[in-house]
């Protein structure tokens, strides 16, 4: 039996522009991009294609020097039109001009009973070769999983509590069979359990409730309860020297499809959300899609920020940008580059705040959906220990002390204070509520990299 865990701390950011439960199919975008920067811990990504090469869905695009066996492959078939590099020739993105009809590399197909008899090694081999592997994320550090280790458990968060998050019952409708096969395969990789962490109060889709062979746990509380790191902390925390894997349901489904259908199927639903979108809804597309076609004639105004992912942890990609590897959401928010006269004291029920300081009344109507822009609402200042971080981190971790130890580059202290248990998304709310406007997620990643290199 799974556990039932109730959390109190946190803050659910309720924004306007949630996607309606409607799936739309439009003409597929022209270009798709895979960005090595989406994968933490890649050390020296090296392309295996040249500009002008043609690829199929599942053909290798690049691999990384840290683990050469891990292949990162093309989500769609087409022509490699651009290999973009940045400073020091760092590989930034590989762009594919897609064919009208996707052609697939073929991998070996299995029946369910055959899969049951496959060894972990054989399963890993096909996952690595097809490019499905990078869906597996290793904690600590939130990097692509090392195929050579056996994690003590694998965790799957079955809901998303980020602002404007897509509804998993829409995203994964009808994928039950693939999900089940994916879970069966994952079980062979771990010495412990596969945990599926569901939301206690909302309706759970059959995908998660009917699954066999996994621990189904229940969680309730405000965001970040949906973050898998928070869930792990309460179920079976990561200690020094231990390794846990996490994977999104989309990745589990891809694993199932790889073995049942013999292809790397990167098709997915993406939620187009945000207050500036005319028709927020779901679109059917593939990993790495260009956002351009979804936004066409679908924006209320022009001065917007287009984010791949959610507004709390996402990346601004621009109107011509592409969706990140792990993202299933595009958020479009008003750009906030305006100066507000004495904006530090003007009252407003409209201004969203976790705080209740003078003039901030949003706490009076927590159920109201709000339009929030990208303004910083203040300027960077020295750390003030107001105890507010502690109110949005539902873990036995002292976020301020941890962040200070990172700023001091004290690796022993970071370890002792629990840096192994968190990645950016787990502390993203601290960045939101911070009075002094620190880049908490960036600081945390620097700390993780320091520990990793030590």
């Amino acid at each position: 039996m799974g556990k039932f865990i109730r959390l109190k701390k946190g803050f659910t950011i309720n924004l306007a522009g949630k996607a309606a439960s409607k799936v739309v199919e439009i003409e597929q975008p022209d270009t798709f991009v895979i960005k090595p920067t989406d994968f933490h811990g890649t050390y020296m990504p090296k392309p295996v294609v040249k500009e002008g090469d043609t690829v199929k869905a599942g053909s290798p695009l690049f691999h990384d020097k840290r683990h050469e066996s891990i292949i990162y492959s093309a989500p769609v078939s087409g022509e490699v039109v651009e290999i973009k590099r940045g400073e020091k020739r760092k590989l930034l993105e590989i762009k594919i001009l897609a064919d009208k009809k996707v052609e697939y590399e073929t991998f070996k197909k299995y029946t369910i009973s055959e899969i049951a008899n496959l060894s972990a090694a054989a399963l890993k081999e096909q996952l690595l070769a097809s490019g499905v592997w990078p869906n597996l994320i290793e904690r600590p550090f939130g990097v692509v999983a090392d195929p050579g280790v056996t994690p003590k458990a694998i965790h799957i968060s079955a809901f998303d509590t980020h602002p404007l998050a897509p509804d998993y019952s829409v995203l994964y409708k009808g994928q039950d069979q693939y999900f089940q096969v994916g879970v069966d395969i994952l079980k062979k990789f771990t010495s412990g359990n596969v945990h599926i962490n569901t939301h206690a109060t909302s309706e759970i889709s059959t995908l998660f409730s009917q699954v066999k062979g996994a621990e189904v746990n229940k969680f309730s509380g405000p965001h970040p309860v949906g973050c898998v790191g928070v869930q792990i902390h309460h179920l079976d925390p990561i200690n020094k020297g231990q390794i846990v894997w996490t994977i999104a349901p989309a990745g589990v489904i891809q694993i199932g499809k790889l073995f049942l259908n013999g292809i790397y199927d990167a098709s997915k639903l993406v939620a187009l959300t945000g207050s500036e979108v005319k028709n927020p809804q779901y679109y059917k597309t593939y990993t790495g899609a260009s956002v351009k076609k979804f936004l066409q004639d679908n924006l209320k105004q022009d001065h917007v920020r287009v984010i791949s992912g959610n507004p709390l942890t996402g990346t601004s990609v621009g109107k011509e940008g592409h969706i990140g590897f792990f993202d299933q959401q595009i958020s479009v928010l008003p750009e906030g580059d305006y100066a507000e006269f004495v904006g530090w004291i003007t009252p407003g029920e409209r201004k969203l705040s976790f705080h209740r300081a003078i003039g901030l009344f949003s706490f009076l109507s927590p159920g109201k959906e709000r339009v929030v822009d990208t303004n910083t609402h203040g300027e960077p200042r020295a750390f003030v220990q107001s105890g507010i971080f502690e109110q949005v981190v539902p873990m036995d971790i002292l976020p301020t002390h941890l962040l200070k130890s990172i700023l001091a580059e004290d690796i022993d202290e970071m370890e002792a204070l629990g840096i192994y248990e968190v990645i950016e998304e787990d502390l993203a709310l601290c960045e939101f509520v911070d009075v002094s406007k620190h880049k908490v997620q960036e600081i945390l990643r620097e700390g993780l990299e320091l520990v990793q290199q030590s």
Partner: protein
Amino acid sequence: MEFIKHQIEKIKPNFEKGGKWEKHYYSFEALETFLFAPATTNGIKGAQIRDAIDLKRLMMTVIISMVPCLLFGMWNVGHQHFLAIGQSASFMDKFWIGVVQVMPIVVVSYGVGLGIEFVFATFRRHPVNEGFLVTGMLIPLVMPPDVPLWQVGLATAFAVIIGKEAFGGTGMNVMNVALTARAFLYFAYPTDISGSVWTYIGDAKAVAGYSGATPLSLAADAATAGTNVVASLNSFGAGWNEGVFSFWNMFMGIMPGCIGETSTLMCLVGAFILVATGAGSWKVIVSVFGGAYAMGLLLNLIGGNAFVEMPAHYHLVIGGLAFGAVFMATDPVTASQTETGKWIYGALIGIFTVMIRVFNPAYPEGIMLAILLMNVFAPLIDYFVVSANKKRRLQRATV
């Protein structure tokens, strides 16, 4: 509005890198961000949206929580003035006397403090922090109404330079800056901070029988003389201000004392604002009061002299305990930074306040010393709380 914005944009290049007033960039930044919340947007990666709070608003919240104490203090300065000189006066007359007496102290405190802040910000090249907006208001509130202005200026300068900037500026200071200013006066000019300084008398003549004694000094005297503290408090002021030190009068704060700290009631109003807005820690406030009351009760049980036997609830309304608990102990920089630590920190402040009051007649104002002492020990408390957190993690690893 557009005009001001335009003017700021016009002079801005002078302060930016390479401009002729480049050195004064942070002074300019302070002014600019005061007028306009900046047009900056969040970075490409990470949080794309931010809470509407900023440090200025948080500090304003704290300042607003002090306004009841300030307004009441102004009226009370006038009220005590007319009582001491034996005249009756209207509400507005009293309030006006208070305004005239208090405002210069506020101006000196802000002027000196902010001046030093700007100088340090310019030389050290860091933004001017809003923390002093609160300190600059706290200092006048803990000053006696009749304090010479040069002493206010000197105390503020000492507190900001030695108490704060020497430690690295806002956020790095170990001891509460406003209390450092008060302690400086207390130890540097002990003869001035006693007697009639608690009441503004001015050029007028005090009535016969007037005395500048405070409840704390009365209690200490009673202890030496072996008389009942409550009785001597109740009988004080006979003839010119009878009942000034009765329990309820002290709770209301209609008595001589520092400008802003006489009224327990107004401090509680401030505490309500701080707690409701989340700007101050309720844990600290509750534990200071709780610690002081518990210590008072304990001493009542043990017994000894008259001060020890003073009913415990009197401790909560005499001296600056309420003001210290609400506005000084809750300073996020100098208080304990862990949530568990806040309980310990607050309770110890309460306990030490009562102990210093009762057992050390040389220093009647126990709250000031207790908070400064605990400011020094707060990092130690945090050290143990953080160590406990680390230990839990380590133990988990071995099982």
